[in-house]
């Protein structure tokens, strides 16, 4: 017997399966909840907090909170939007995001979220942290200036590729993605076809020699905001 759980998101009644998270249930109902560290198919991380929604009046991350009967969720409100804008602002100022020459520009999820929220300038001062680049691998490069610590590479490598190439080290400001080798990325068993490489939402892990291959005007987020594919069709699963 299939059970369903009924909840409301911004007043709209939706149904989901028991055990489903708010983000997934909303997505199937054609409601987009903005997210960065979440990627369909990976264990939810709940670290970026961009998917924060109000659940029965309390802020919770939609990617890690299971749905319950009669749950009241607020997603698209001014209060939540302003909180998400602040989070995106902070991600921009605490890294070095030079969109003007980044290979990922136009296909970047962080940038696309900033576009969606209509951010023209961050309200916090830029930090300009000194980070490093690992270009030792012949086909892949890590540019930690652009890393937002979403952990999608870490989880993809473990859960999809069956490897353990990436892992977090350090705490707070010092936290960064390290590679599982004595020295550098070239010494790991990473492969250019790994899901972990595709999983990066920003330009922190990029394939070499394919930059700028899609011309401006034809990139993922040039014409439609991120999430519009979910809003357009309730049945589709976002990438």
């Amino acid at each position: 017997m299939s059970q369903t759980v009924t909840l409301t998101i911004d007043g709209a009644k939706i149904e989901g399966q028991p055990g489903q998270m708010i983000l997934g249930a909303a997505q199937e109902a054609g409601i987009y909840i903005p997210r960065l560290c979440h990627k369909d198919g990976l264990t939810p991380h709940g670290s970026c907090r961009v998917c924060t929604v109000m659940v029965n009046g309390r802020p919770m991350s939609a990617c890690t909170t299971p749905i319950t009967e009669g749950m009241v969720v607020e997603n698209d409100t001014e209060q939540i939007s302003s909180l998400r804008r602040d989070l995106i602002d902070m991600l921009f100022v605490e890294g070095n995001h030079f969109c003007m020459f980044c290979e990922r520009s136009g296909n970047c999820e962080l940038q696309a979220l900033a576009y969606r929220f209509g951010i023209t300038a961050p309200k916090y001062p830029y930090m300009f942290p000194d980070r490093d680049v690992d270009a030792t691998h012949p086909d892949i490069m890590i540019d930690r200036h652009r890393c937002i610590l979403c952990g999608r590479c870490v989880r993809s490598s473990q859960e999809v590729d069956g490897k353990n190439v990436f892992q977090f080290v350090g705490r707070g400001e010092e936290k960064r993605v390290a590679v599982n080798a004595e020295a550098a990325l070239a010494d790991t068993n990473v492969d250019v076809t790994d899901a972990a490489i595709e999983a990066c939402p920003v330009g922190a892990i990029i394939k070499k020699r394919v930059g700028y291959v899609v011309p401006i005007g034809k990139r993922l987020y040039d014409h439609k905001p991120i999430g519009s594919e979910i809003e357009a069709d309730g049945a589709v699963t976002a990438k």
Partner: protein
Amino acid sequence: MAKPKIATTSLAGCFGCHMSLLDIDERILALAEIVDFDKSPLDDIKTFTGRCAVGLIEGGCAHEENVEVLRDFRKHCDVLISVGDCAISGGIPAMRNMVPLQECLQEAYVDGPSVHNPAGVPPNDPDIPLMLDKVYPAHEVVKIDYHLPGCPPPADMLWEALVALLNNKPLDLPYELVKYD
């Protein structure tokens, strides 16, 4: 009634944003109908002749003269707009922000592989503006009223923004025009 005045400047920028402004093509004639240009590299007026309605800032602040000019713009303009990524985030010049200033100057004027500088010290003529410790976006130095991102911002965006502002209309830019590249 006298026409409202517009002033523009390029601080630590590449003049690309000014090129984009010129890219409004023949609409510049319509613009000249409704505004006068005051201090701007476009007409080569060096000092403000009076109060301006709009000031367009290209580029961030890399040295003390940039700061001086920016403050002068704030003083003379009713509305100040950061135009382009360099004014908004520091942009390409801000790539030096991760390196201490002393090291930057040492590499650029002494140690760089193609440097010919027998004196062996960075230029220190008093006429050269002093470099700031890092490159600052315009809104971290003075109050900025609006930001128009892009590298450069599309000509259509600059046009739409100026027309809306000068006609006291709300600015509602289409999704396609607001980009960071």
